[in-house]
C-alpha cells in the first residue's frame, strides 16, 4: 500500500526519532577491547531476542495470533520473525485455543519433541483453564499435560495482551540460569508431569 493506513479518527503523528531500540548490554566489566560478563546473561540476551515460536493454534485465539503476526501488531519486531512448525527447530510453544481431550496427547507429543531449552506460553482462557467450556470433552487447562511458563488470559486476548505475554517470556528467558535445565527442581517438575 502506498500510503499508511490510519484508522484513529484523530490520528497522532508518530514520533520516530527513537523507533529503533537497541538491546541493552548486560552488566559487566569493560576495558580496552574486552568486556566480561556472566555467560548466562549473554546467552539469555541472545535467546530472548530471537525466540522462534511454534504456533499451536487451534481455535479463535489462533486468529488473534494471526492478527498479532500481521503488520499492525507485528510479532516480528520482538525477534519472532520465523515462526516454525517443526518442534525441533523452535524454542517457544505458543498454545492458542481450546485443547480437547482428543488433542491432549498430540500436544504432549509435540512438547516432548521440542529440544531443550523450551518454554511454553498458554494463550487464551481455554488453554489456561478450559475457559468457558467446562465440558466433558475439553481439557481444563494445558497444565494438566505439560508445564507452562506464562499464562495469557482473555477470550481471545487482544494482540497487545499476547505481546505482553511474549515479553514476559522474554524476561524469563533473559534471566534463566544456564544450569536450570539440569537442576533437581526442574527434574522434579518434569517428573510430576511424567516426562523423563
Amino acid at each position, binding site marked *: 500500500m502506498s500510503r499508511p493506513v490510519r484508522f484513529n479518527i484523530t490520528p497522532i503523528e508518530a514520533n520516530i526519532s527513537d523507533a529503533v531500540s537497541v538491546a541493552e548490554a548486560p552488566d559487566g566489566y569493560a576495558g580496552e577491547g574486552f568486556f566480561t560478563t556472566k555467560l548466562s546473561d549473554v546467552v539469555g540476551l541472545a535467546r530472548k531476542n530471537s525466540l522462534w515460536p511454534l504456533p499451536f493454534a487451534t481455535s479463535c485465539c489462533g486468529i488473534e495470533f494471526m492478527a498479532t503476526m500481521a503488520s499492525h501488531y507485528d510479532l516480528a519486531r520482538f525477534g519472532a520473525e520465523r515462526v516454525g512448525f517443526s518442534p525441533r527447530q523452535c524454542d517457544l510453544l505458543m498454545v492458542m485455543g481450546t485443547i480437547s481431550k*482428543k488433542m491432549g496427547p498430540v500436544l504432549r507429543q509435540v512438547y516432548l519433541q521440542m529440544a531443550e531449552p523450551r518454554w511454553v506460553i498458554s494463550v487464551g482462557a481455554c488453554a489456561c*483453564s478450559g475457559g468457558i467450556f467446562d*465440558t*466433558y*470433552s475439553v481439557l481444563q487447562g494445558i497444565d494438566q499435560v505439560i508445564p507452562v511458563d506464562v499464562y495469557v488470559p482473555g477470550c481471545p486476548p487482544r494482540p497487545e495482551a499476547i505481546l505482553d505475554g511474549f515479553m514476559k517470556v522474554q524476561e524469563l528467558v533473559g534471566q534463566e540460569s544456564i544450569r536450570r535445565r539440569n537442576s533437581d527442581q526442574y527434574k522434579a517438575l518434569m517428573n510430576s508431569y511424567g516426562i523423563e
Partner: protein
Amino acid sequence: MALTNEHVQQRLSEKFGAIVSNFEEPYGMLSFEVEKDQNLKVLQFLHDEADLGFQFLTDLCAVNYPDQIGRELAVVYHLHNLKDNLRIRFKVFAPVAQPDVFTATKLYSAANWMERETYDFFGVNFVGHPNLKRILNVDEMDYFPLRKEFPLEDQTRIDKDDQMFGRG
C-alpha cells in the same frame, strides 16, 4: 403452481397412509412423524417424485426424549426442495433399548458424517452405514454424552468447585 405444505401432506398420506402421522406446521414448516422402518421409503419417495423433489438433505440430527418410554430417541431429518423453496422436517422414533434406524447414506452422501455424529452423541445405530464409528469424541469413550442422563461437566476435574457453580 408452487409446492405447498398441503400438497406434500396430501401426497404422503395417499402413498403411505398410516405410516406417516402427526402432521403439524410449527412456525410454517411441515413436520410429521414416520414409522422407524419406513424412513428410507419416505426419503426415496420425497426425492424421486417429480412434483416433490426434496433432493437436498439440510440436516440430520437426533433428540433424546427420556420421558417417552419406548420412543426415547428421535432422528430428525430436515429436507429442502431448492427449486420450489420448501422445507419439511420429519422424525423417526426409536426405543433406547434397540435404536436401529436404516441409513440414508446411499441416497444422500451428506448423511454419512451426520449419522456418525448422531451415533457419537446418542448411540443411534444406523444399519448399513459404511463406517459407523465415533467422529467427534475420543474413540475410547464408552457412553453417549448428549443423552439427558449424562452430565455436561467432566466429573473427574479437580480445579473447579461444583458448589461455587451452583451444581453441588
